[in-house]
């Protein structure tokens, strides 16, 4: 998100989900769309049906790869090299859009210099993808009329996550594939309301609508809106909070509906941090592994038990409606927050979520025209600044949100941890089609639980043979941070030398192994690459 915001001025998906079906070339990288965003995959299937070309770059042979015009399995963490290689070809062959570059962007000359060295042969050497495939990818994407890029955590969960995203932005801008219907760069947001949580200022550096906390004008605006003295100091990110607790600068953590014991890298480190807290408050709907460590657990209401709104991955604000009363004595989260604030001495007087939305639209320019009344029907896509504004289907139409699109000249950097003699396998993580995130909700759905009941490790048949592993065998997986056991799934979905594990399952928790190494800018951990060793459990 930080990457796209730096290049374009906004970190959100540039187009709408439905627009994808009219793209004539879709480049999918780091997104197992049919598993993680199935209803986006619907539009990709349709585009393909209408004759679009499909490019898939993924170390695993995901479902979409089987119908791709070109599928490449690049080495883990080599996205920048792959994309720079494509751009090198595009410039060399003259497939770039000079008019767009001249009119709408800046920084091109610096990028050009860097790209010079990324011949397809050099890119092939780093990525393990053939030079011919790199040329084909470049041609398909560059020559499209309406090219779309779709990416997800396979791009961002790297120490070079921001670099990866900026490089994708570069690719879209040198070809002019941005700012038009069915044409753009589309990060798929994983959580149902991660877009909304960001929009609402659930980030340490910004108020609602991404207004920087360090800007005195913003501070003044919110001080007067909220009638309180505010801090101009950027706060801590999740990862920094965990180390803050471990080192004692941080004393208390209040967690609303999150489960870092399963979702965060290096579980042992997270557990130590949470146990060090003088006060750990967890507000959730289930007694998650995180809640089990809390001093106080507050039972919230599920989405079916309250009113409100979610903002989906395409910036569409939609209503959530109360279907039943909260179970037992659970209470809607907004009521709990209000009660605590009142007892803390900062009065809140909202009677309904709709009243809160009125305040949101009054302080959040991009939500300025949003009212519950107007959300009936299809909802509204922000930016929607005024009550007569129809909402925005795609961004950056005639002008980037930041003015000119900014090219970043980026060199390939290897991942923080690479395979060696002791830890010879590349390890990566992801979702499976029947589960969502830490499994708090999906594992409590009997149908989903019976579809996929436990975690597993995907191992290539060649590697399995070498290790004497058969389908279903228990395998011990260890990294520099921890060890766990899982069932072996022998499959050619993964290449030789690469293993994959879903992260939903606490009993065989992938994040015992993963690396906490962070992207220096956005502080995302490198969940998608680390080095492990495998041993058959006798």
């Amino acid at each position, binding site marked *: 998100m930080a990457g796209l915001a730096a290049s374009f001025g906004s970190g959100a998906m540039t187009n709408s989900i439905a627009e994808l079906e009219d793209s004539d070339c879709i480049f999918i990288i780091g997104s197992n769309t049919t598993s993680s965003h199935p209803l986006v995959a*619907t539009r990709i299937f*349709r585009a393909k049906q209408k004759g679009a070309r499909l490019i898939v770059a993924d170390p695993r042979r995901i479902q979409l790869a089987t119908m791709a015009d070109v599928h490449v399995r690049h080495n883990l963490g080599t996205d920048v090299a792959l994309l720079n290689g494509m751009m090198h070809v595009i410039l060399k062959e003259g497939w770039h859009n000079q008019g767009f570059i001249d009119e709408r962007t800046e920084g091109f000359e610096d990028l050009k210099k860097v790209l010079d060295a990324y011949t397809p042969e050099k890119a092939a050497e780093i990525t393990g993808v053939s030079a011919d495939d790199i040329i084909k990818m470049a041609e398909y994407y560059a020559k499209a009329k309406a090219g779309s890029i779709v990416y997800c955590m396979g791009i961002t969960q790297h120490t070079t996550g921001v670099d990866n995203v900026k490089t994708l932005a570069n690719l879209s801008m040198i070809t002019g594939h941005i700012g038009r219907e069915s044409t753009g760069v589309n990060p798929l947001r994983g959580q149902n309301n991660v877009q909304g949580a960001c929009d609402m200022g659930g980030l340490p550096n910004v108020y609602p609508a991404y207004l920087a906390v360090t800007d005195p004008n913003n501070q003044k605006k919110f001080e007067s809106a909220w009638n309180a003295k505010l801090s101009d100091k950027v706060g801590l990110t999740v990862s920094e909070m965990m180390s803050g607790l471990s080192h004692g600068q941080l004393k208390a953590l209040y967690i609303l509906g999150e489960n870092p014991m399963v979702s965060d890298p290096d579980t042992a480190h997270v557990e130590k941090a949470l146990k060090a807290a003088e006060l750990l408050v967890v507000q959730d709907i289930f007694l998650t592994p995180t809640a089990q460590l809390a001093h106080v657990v507050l039972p919230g209401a599920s989405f079916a038990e309250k009113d409100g709104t979610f903002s989906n991955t395409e910036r569409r604000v939609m209503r959530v409606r109360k279907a039943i009363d909260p179970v037992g004595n659970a209470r809607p989260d907004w009521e709990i927050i209000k009660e605590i604030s009142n007892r803390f001495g900062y009065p809140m007087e909202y009677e309904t979520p709709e009243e809160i939305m009125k305040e949101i639209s009054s302080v959040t320019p991009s939500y300025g025209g949003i009212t519950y009344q107007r959300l*009936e029907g299809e909802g509204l896509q922000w930016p929607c600044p005024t009550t007569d504004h129809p909402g925005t289907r795609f961004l950056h139409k005639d002008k980037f949100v930041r003015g000119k699109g900014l090219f970043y000249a980026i060199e390939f950097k290897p991942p923080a941890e690479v395979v060696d003699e002791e830890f010879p396998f590349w390890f990566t993580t992801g979702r499976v089609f029947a589960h969502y995130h830490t499994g708090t909700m999906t594992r409590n759905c009997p149908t989903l639980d019976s579809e996929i009941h436990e975690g597993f490790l995907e191992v290539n048949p060649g590697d399995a043979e070498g290790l004497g592993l058969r389908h279903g065998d228990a395998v011990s997986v260890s990294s520099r941070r921890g060890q766990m056991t899982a069932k072996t799934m022998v499959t050619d979905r993964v290449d030789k030398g690469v293993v994959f594990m879903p992260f939903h399952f606490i009993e065989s928790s992938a994040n015992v192994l993963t690396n906490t190494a962070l992207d220096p800018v956005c502080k995302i951990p490198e969940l998608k690459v680390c080095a492990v060793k495998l041993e058959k459990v006798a």
Partner: protein
Amino acid sequence: MSEQVKNRVKELLSSGKIKGFLGLCSRNGHIAPHLFVNADDLDNLVVGDKLAAGDSRYPLNRQLINLVRAYPDETFGILVRGCDERGLTALASWNQVDPNKIEMVGIACPRELALACECLKPYPESFVDGEKCEGVSPESVARIDTLQVKERFDHWYHEFSKCIKCYGCRDICPMCFCNECSLENNELIRTGEIPPEIPTFHLTRAVHMAGRCIDCGLCSEACPADIPLRTLYKKVADIIDKQYGFRTGYDGAQKSPLNFLGGLPE
């Protein structure tokens, strides 16, 4: 929208003949499946055409089964098209609903919808609204029948390879009322994989639909991969018709030739 439907429902509700009417309602800027319980509250009753005819049809029969299972002594009214009526006829023959406790309020489908559905009988036996139009023979089946075996195989292989195993074809199906589903049987079809085994998953369901599918097409509309399931099941229905002279839901007295649950066919 449809005054005839509204008047009939009003009559049924105000006379106390039915406990509630399952139909469609315009609300929240959408068309919603809805249970009307008050004769004076029918202003938003619609027949399910938002932008095109029949574009917001819902599995009302399926919802009816939920209601009658919880309230077996009550009588309910329900909005039906030709396919829904066939469904209720078949469900009655499988002992899933009591036909004496259902009041159908029928609408005949317009030509446009009959063509889109390739429906053999786009109207219920009795209807209060719409005009009876002729049945349409399934071109989609004929088209695939002309393909060579290899092409046909490739066609279905490609379609099935898009399956994301949502089970939506089953979950929306008004004729799927089994307590246990062979699609979830790990011995038959490995769980936990997408696409599910080709062609086992889809052919298992197709075989299961033989003598059961009433050709409402809700499965195709619910498929996130746009697999033309309806065409597949139409073909299965054609085979059953040719072999046994049976079409599901046309004649309530006639049992399905594959009716294992209700004893052997005569």
